[in-house]
């Protein structure tokens, strides 16, 4: 059973406010959901729900770092590696509020020597949610990660990276990041099955 399945959702995780920045600017949150590779998994609900905390004490500036972004890349000659190299500057600019830590080749190799089951999954982008870590440390939900190395084509890797960057921007002030991710993952599996039933061409996620 893969972790993160629907039944493994932690009680209370969804309702717990992560930080008091629930009110997204009206222009930032999407009004409707889209359906492209990975996008359903990483997009989509307005974060300006009623009932979210909005006291001045808990509000943070939009420029306050919400995430720490780590990049592990040993340098495999893979589409994911190339896409990341080609578009890193853009990611850097889009996420300028959040620090990006690049492990470098030596540190990445050392990292994967200790986590050999992840060899070939890199480039890996791990995002630590500082709000969640402030609440529960690392014992519960505390971020998310993208394994670009598992994508087989340049187009898949690029689309995944774009959706990932969009997700980061759109959810910087989310109060329920975990819930949004898990709902998206469930929707994606269901949507794929419905496509098959309807006889449409299956979407390619990792081939």
């Amino acid at each position, binding site marked *: 059973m893969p*972790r*993160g399945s629907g039944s493994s959702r932690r009680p209370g995780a969804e309702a717990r406010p992560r930080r008091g920045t629930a009110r997204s600017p009206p222009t930032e949150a999407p009004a409707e959901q889209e359906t492209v590779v*990975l996008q359903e998994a990483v997009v989509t609900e307005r974060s300006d729900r009623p009932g979210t905390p909005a006291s001045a004490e808990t509000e943070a500036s939009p420029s306050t770092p919400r995430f720490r972004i780590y990049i592990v890349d040993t340098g495999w000659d893979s589409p994911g590696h190339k896409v990341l190299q080609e578009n*890193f500057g853009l990611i850097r600019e889009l996420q300028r509020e959040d620090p990006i830590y690049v492990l470098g080749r030596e540190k990445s190799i050392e990292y994967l020597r200790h986590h050999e089951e992840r060899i070939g999954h890199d480039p890996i982008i*791990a995002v630590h949610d500082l709000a969640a870590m402030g609440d529960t440390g690392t014992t519960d939900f505390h*971020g998310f990660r993208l394994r670009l190395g598992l994508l087989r084509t340049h187009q898949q890797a690029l689309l*995944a990276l774009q959706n990932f960057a969009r997700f980061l921007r759109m959810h910087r002030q989310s109060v329920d990041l975990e819930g949004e*991710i898990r709902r998206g993952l469930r929707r994606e599996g269901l949507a794929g099955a419905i496509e098959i039933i309807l006889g449409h061409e299956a979407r390619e996620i990792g081939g």
Partner: protein
Amino acid sequence: MPERWSDYLTIFMSALAVGYMFYEIDRRQRKLREIFDVLDAEDAAVTARLEDMVASGELQPYTGATLA
């Protein structure tokens, strides 16, 4: 009897179709989670190591515009 067989066949095929649907949903969710998933308790050690590297100054925010 032929009518019964056809009933059995219909039930069997329907069960197969439903089973396939659930299998396909599960397969796609697994595949997606391989690529994109949350970090939770299973990743605590890795997360802590990365955070330690930042806290100790071993890792600094990357300011370059391109990856070396």
